[in-house]
């Protein structure tokens, strides 16, 4: 594709900067240079997608754009500036951050993109935005790798053949002629959900031009049933957003609000804020969870009930009745009046619901009931009714204006296509061929449409079926906007010129509208102007602030939304009783994958290698099943030589079947399975190829979330799966220390007395301790009460520290390279396990066992208490890793950064070198390690050094070179939405880390070794309700001083190994 480089036609308003004296004086030389340089370079672009020259230009381009975000007073220039004419604020090696946002189906994530010399390397949450406050999640962290994905198709195709942009121009002209003739009756647009107001504006414009055109939106995992329910309950144009920070008692019914599908950053932040216990007497919220599979939310629960997804309605009905009994409420009574009288399925203890209801009622309007958004409209509405009865609307359940505009559903669009009324279909993003319900038959359907165009950043199953494929841009390459979950208006600005050309959805819509390509942010700015309605004098400043800060606050949710009990009551007759599940007719729930979401991130190596928080599975998905169901079906998992060998089953629903491994998931409800979607996309690229199976193949319109009648047949085959944690139990070791809140109040220092810690004699060090004389003494504290185990820290660390992807084969061999990992242990009874998460990074031991054994002094202590690695010195004896009690050291067994991961064993015969684009992502402040060296967490020493340099620059000649408290965060800490990781200076007694370390519940892992770790943990405090049936009220092992060490907590030992047998 020829690139057309645009020059600004005229000087925009505001101050104009000239780039050189040549420009200032408008010399003919400069004019010639300006006009000749780039078109000449464009020829080179076509031959080599990313030559050095062209990269320099890219950098220049993004810097020119950077000016907008940073200075806010440059005119919007969208043309290229060679880097030789460097803007004055650019210092090579120094990063610049630009506010942007990652569009999501349920509210974009406000972000800052860190760029070095014009290339984005790392995403951070936008610290100014209340949802993020600097935090992000694993998908936001990994999004930067998607930008550089070498598998992104770099050219236009028509019927599978490379096409020229002029051909597309002709095609768009033809579409416009056709649509103009029939008012768009034969034109349909199918888009993914980006919540972009500008896109909405263009959509409206398009529909004005072609009133008969169809605009459909499809998101495979967001059917919008909650929006329907909200419309009934609170009026149309509303949607509901929980405020977990205000809730004291929370019941989550199959709503994984701490996972990345159902919830967002503010949910995690709000929930964990209510669990942050610092001293006896502090209050903690209480979480009840009823769910089919063990989710992250389930791990944080104080009481968990295994509930089949199809029993959700019955469960909620019973809950509502209990609440009505406890607190008579006319609205609730009227809602429940016509509901069917369904019995509770066996196995659900009514006392559980009763006590839970009592606890909810006791907390008045500070309680919250959350229901999974993919359940039926009736169930959603019932959830809202319960919250309304509890008085939660406006306190913990906020009603805000709906973010997305109503659109035609995929089903209606399919009908139209089937009736042959659509001749041209434009698909903006998404992958309906892959993810649409099977009964709609999208793979064949596209063949029946004469003209179809797919605009997508990556070539996927849909692209293969459409006539045209137009390369789309990544959000880091284009101007845009989006709404966050709270309704605030986010700006999206490019941080780099599109790597391989391509168009954004907005640009393509403009093309469809028959307008000329917008210059820079013109489109978004138009929307912004319309939204803000500011006078021309304030407009400029407001726009610049918006782009720089990244958002405009949303409308405040109206607290006084009235609950419409009549409309809800009408919906509730649809609640049905759960199907009776048997071994030959199981219930299946289609869940999102924590790694690849609905499949959109399947070609992202970081996410494929990201261990699922619960199963610890990488590079694959699998059917999740309870151990009881597995044994009744004769299915087993075995750990053979460190590899999870899982039985492969043929899973059949109706006439459709897939072959896939089963993974026994402790805590899963019996006679039901969970099917994570998003895998099995071989077409996407080399990373996605061969990873997992496609669970969408079993999905139909009426079983979009829960399907009945699943049969699992043993095939006799097994599949090797790569798990990063093979052993699931703590083996009675005092690794994660837990206490009930009441126990903590009685004995706040319990964590220091658990296990061997109460018996340690005074320890002597054999070698003199390192001289800890530095200006700062770095330390980290991780609060196990608030860590949800979401693993965002793992991806953040991967992005920050240039951690290589090693591939499934290497993960199976135990060679994953993550510097921080989240250990997940199951505790309690094997049938009803509890789970705990514990992030483990290098402990930076003051008395480090790794340091004494390194023969070449490659790992040494610095005066600030860091255990530092000198990669240049490391010869790779691996002794340090053997002697590390926490096993946090990682070894480069191969040249992971230089050789393709499928040819690691070829040695010098494998092609050498990294993909050019992957190199662009690397953080220049962190060494890219070669094979044969040991590596590990450094507490982000590059950030520490940068902060030091900044402090010194600021100090000038004064002695005040101390890094100001709070000006420095490690990557994992920054990403953590739960604020569970706290890093800082121990020498500053006022720092948060010093104060946390002084807390009584602070403990060191493996204290008895006397390694004196700088990373310590705050013991986990649970808040069980003693009135609950079977409540475990004591979490402190009854240690005393007996001989029974190593045997208490014996119950822990079951879940893991047995789960795998």
């Amino acid at each position: 594709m020829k690139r057309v480089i645009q020059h600004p036609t005229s000087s925009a308003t505001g101050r104009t900067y000239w780039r050189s004296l040549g420009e200032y004086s408008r010399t003919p030389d400069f004019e010639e240079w300006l006009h000749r340089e780039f078109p000449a370079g464009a020829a080179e672009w076509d031959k080599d997608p990313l030559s050095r020259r062209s990269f320099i230009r890219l950098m220049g381009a993004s810097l020119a754009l950077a000016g907008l975000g940073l200075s806010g007073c440059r005119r919007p220039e969208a043309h290229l500036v060679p880097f030789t004419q460097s803007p004055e604020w650019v210092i090579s090696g120094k990063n610049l951050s630009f506010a942007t946002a990652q569009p999501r189906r349920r509210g974009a994530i406000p972000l800052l993109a860190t760029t070095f010399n014009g290339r984005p390397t790392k995403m951070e949450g936008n610290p100014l935005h209340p949802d993020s406050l600097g935090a992000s999640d694993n998908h936001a962290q990994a999004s930067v790798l998607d930008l550089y994905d070498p598998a992104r198709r770099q050219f236009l195709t028509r019927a599978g053949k490379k096409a020229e942009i002029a051909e597309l121009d002709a095609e768009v002209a033809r579409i416009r002629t056709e649509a103009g003739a029939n008012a768009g009756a034969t034109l349909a647009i199918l888009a993914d959900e980006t919540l972009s107001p500008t896109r909405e504006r263009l959509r409206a414009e398009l529909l004005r031009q072609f009133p008969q055109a169809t605009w459909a939106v499809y998101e495979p995992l967001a059917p919008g049933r909650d929006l329907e329910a909200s419309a009934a309950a609170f009026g149309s144009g509303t949607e509901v957003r929980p405020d977990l920070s205000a809730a004291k008692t929370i019941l989550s019914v199959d709503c994984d609000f701490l996972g990345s599908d159902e919830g967002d950053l503010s949910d995690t932040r709000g929930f964990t804020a209510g669990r942050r216990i610092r001293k006896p007497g502090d209050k903690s919220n209480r979480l009840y969870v009823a769910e089919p599979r063990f989710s992250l939310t389930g791990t944080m629960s104080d009481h968990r009930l295994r509930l089949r997804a199809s029993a959700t309605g019955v469960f909620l009905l019973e809950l509502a009745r209990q609440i009505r009994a406890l607190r008579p409420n006319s609205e609730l009574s009227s809602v429940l009046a016509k509901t069917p009288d369904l019995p509770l399925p066996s196995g659900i203890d009514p006392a559980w619901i009763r006590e839970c209801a009592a606890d909810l009622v006791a907390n008045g309007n500070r309680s919250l009931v959350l229901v999974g958004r993919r359940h039926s409209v009736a169930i959603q509405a019932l959830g809202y009714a319960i919250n309304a009865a509890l008085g939660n609307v406006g306190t913990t359940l906020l009603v805000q204006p709906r973010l997305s505009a109503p659109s035609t559903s995929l089903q209606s669009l399919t009908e139209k296509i089937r009736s042959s009324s659509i001749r041209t279909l434009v698909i903006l993003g998404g992958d309906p061929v892959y993810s649409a319900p099977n009964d709609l038959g999208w793979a064949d359907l596209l063949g029946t449409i004469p003209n179809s165009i797919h605009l997508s950043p990556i070539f996927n199953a849909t692209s293969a079926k459409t006539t045209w494929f137009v390369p789309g841009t990544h959000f880091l390459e284009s101007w845009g906007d989006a709404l966050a979950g709270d309704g605030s208006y986010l700006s999206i600005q490019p941080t780099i010129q599109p790597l391989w050309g391509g168009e954004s959805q907005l640009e393509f819509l403009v093309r469809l509208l028959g307008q000329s390509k917008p210059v820079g942010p013109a489109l978004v700015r138009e929307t912004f102007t319309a939204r803000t309605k500011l006078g021309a004098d304030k407009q400029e400043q407001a726009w610049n602030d918006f782009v720089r800060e990244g958002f405009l606050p949303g409308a405040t949710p109206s607290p006084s939304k009235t609950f419409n009990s009549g409309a809800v009551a009408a919906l509730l007759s649809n609640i049905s009783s759960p199907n009776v599940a048997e071994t030959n007719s199981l219930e299946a729930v289609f869940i999102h994958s924590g790694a690849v979401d609905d499949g959109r991130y399947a070609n992202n190596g970081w996410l494929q290698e990201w261990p699922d928080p619960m199963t610890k599975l990488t590079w694959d998905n699998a059917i999740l099943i309870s151990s009881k169901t597995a044994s009744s079906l004769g299915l087993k998992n075995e750990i053979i030589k460190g590899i999870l060998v899982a039985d492969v089953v043929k899973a059949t629903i109706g006439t459709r079947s897939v072959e896939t491994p089963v993974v026994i998931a402790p805590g899963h409800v019996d006679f039901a399975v969970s099917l994570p979607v998003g895998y099995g996309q071989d077409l996407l690229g080399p990373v996605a190829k061969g990873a997992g199976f496609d669970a969408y193949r079993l999905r139909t319109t009426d079983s979009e979330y829960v399907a009945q009648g699943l049969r699992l047949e043993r095939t006799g085959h097994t599949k090797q799966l790569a798990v990063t944690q093979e052993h699931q139990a703590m083996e009675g070791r005092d690794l994660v220390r837990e206490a009930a809140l009441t126990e903590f109040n009685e004995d706040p220092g319990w964590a220091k007395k658990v296990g061997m810690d109460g018996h340690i004699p005074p320890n002597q060090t054999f070698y003199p301790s390192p001289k800890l004389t530095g200006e700062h003494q770095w330390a980290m504290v991780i609060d196990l009460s608030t860590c949800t185990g979401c693993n965002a820290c793992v991806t953040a660390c991967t992005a920050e520290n240039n951690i290589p992807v090693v591939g499934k084969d290497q993960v199976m061999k135990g060679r994953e390279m993550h510097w921080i990992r989240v250990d997940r242990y199951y505790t309690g009874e094997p049938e009803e396990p509890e789970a705990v998460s514990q992030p483990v990074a290098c402990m930076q031991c003051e008395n480090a066992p790794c340091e004494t054994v390194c023969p070449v002094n490659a790992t040494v202590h610095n005066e600030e208490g860091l255990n530092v690695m000198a990669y240049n010195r490391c010869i790779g004896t691996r002794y340090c890793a053997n002697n590390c009690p926490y096993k946090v050291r990682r070894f480069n067994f191969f040249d992971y950064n230089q050789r393709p991961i499928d040819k690691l064993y070829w040695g010098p015969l494998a092609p050498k070198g990294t993909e050019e684009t992957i190199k662009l992502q690397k953080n220049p402040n962190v060494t890219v390690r070669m094979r044969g060296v040991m590596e590990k967490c450094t507490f982000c020493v590059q950030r520490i050094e940068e902060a030091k340099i900044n402090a010194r620059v600021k100090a000038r000649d004064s002695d005040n070179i101390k890094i100001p408290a709070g000006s420095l965060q490690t990557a994992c800490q920054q990403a953590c939405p739960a604020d569970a990781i706290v890093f800082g200076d121990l020498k500053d007694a006022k720092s948060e880390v010093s104060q946390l370390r002084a807390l009584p519940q602070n403990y060191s892992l493996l204290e008895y070794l006397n390694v004196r770790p700088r990373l310590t943990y705050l013991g986990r405090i649970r808040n069980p309700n003693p009135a609950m049936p079977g409540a475990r009220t004591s979490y402190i092992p009854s240690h005393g001083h007996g001989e029974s060490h190593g045997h208490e907590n014996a119950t822990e030992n079951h879940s893991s190994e047995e789960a795998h047998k």
Partner: protein
Amino acid sequence: MRADNASAQAAFAKASDYLERQPLVANHRPLSWITDHVCRIVEQPAPIWWWVSTIVFGAVAALTPAMLTYLVATGVGVWGLNVPVCWAWDITNFVFWIGIGHAGTLISAILFLTRQKWRTSINRSAEAMTIFAVICAGIFPAFHVGRIWFAWFLFPIPNANAIWQNFRSPLLWDVFAVSTYFTVSLIFWYLGLIPDLASLRDRATTRFRQMAYGILSLGWRGSNRQWTHYEKTYLILAGISTPLVLSVHSVVSFDFATSVVPGWHTTIFPPYFVAGAIFGGFAMVLTLLIPFRELYGLHDLVTDKHIDNMCKIILLTGSLVGYAYSMEFFIAWYSGNPFEIYAFTNRAFGPYWWAYWAMITCNVAAPQLFWFKYCRQNPWVVLAIVMFPNTGMWFERFVIIVTSIHRDFLPSSWGYFSPTWVDITLFIGTIGLFVFLFLLFVRFLPIINMFEVKGITPQADPHAHNPGSNHAAPTQPPHSLDESRVHA
């Protein structure tokens, strides 16, 4: 009275037949026979079996450089290592070979200092075995590092990068201990070879052999003065070697003992490793000597008595390691430390139980057969039994290294190690290298220490006059005018 006297004398004569020590050279072989018999191996054309086995083992030995080339070119990942098992066959093989290298120097140094005359006929080959075993051993720590091209960082070489070693690391002690051991063993061995090399030179019939052995024998003329210097030097080297025998394996054991890993962090390791090394070393000496004794007809020099003695040492050291194994368990239990208790329970009953019980069978149970005289006297039975310690000692190191680190403190990080074809092929390659070098040794160097054996023959001892026996009277004093030493 007379009759009584006569019967008493007869009884005494009969008893003395039993009580008399068996001579260390059987069948009253004259000195010239010893020279002829030993030198003939080197001087006569090599037998067919030698050619066949040398070619075969040479080919197997070639696997070593082949595997090392692949390893260095590709990365340590071609082995089955992982996190947590960062050492496995590499260090197992290293300790295994180093252990084998112990018997040689023990025989030549400690038995020399303690005047154990039976050492003379076996010390040469045992020392050669030591040298070759240490060569095989040295390959592993050198090549197991991730970046061998920087392995010179391990040596205190002044350099512009100011790289200096960490003298707290047992791995560095290892570097010095092993290199010192190798150097001293090599010098000790070579020094002991000089008089015999001179004999070969003097007997040589071709110019090439004369030159080669002439250069190697460093101008040895057998003068009284040379003998005086020789004996003193040999004694001093024996004195230097003796602590090395104990130190090398103690230092090797520090690699584990000074760590924090349960199962490694054990004070019993130094004596236990030394005992194990002697145990394994003697087993390997017997493994090599019994076939070669048979092939070269050296029964009169390496007598059944020698084999019997070595079997007894194996029995003793085997029992010592058995004691150490049980003591480790006792201490783990006695410590009350759940991590220690788990480490040892896991050894015996965890995923690597088979390795542990293979070790117990081979190292503790099998040598107990040497309580029976029959088992010590029949060389083929001995050969069969010593194969157990040979195997068992490899398993011992595997058990110590792999089972300790594959499940240490945090269950989340537990793992499993399986060897790859490269691991296995490289180990086989070093076995090939070891045997190949030994085959070259038996072909080109005198495998029996001729001059020392002559020194312990009855005829070399001026006081060895026993009227009751039929032994030949000593003909010459051992040191002054011993023609055999000069001309052989």
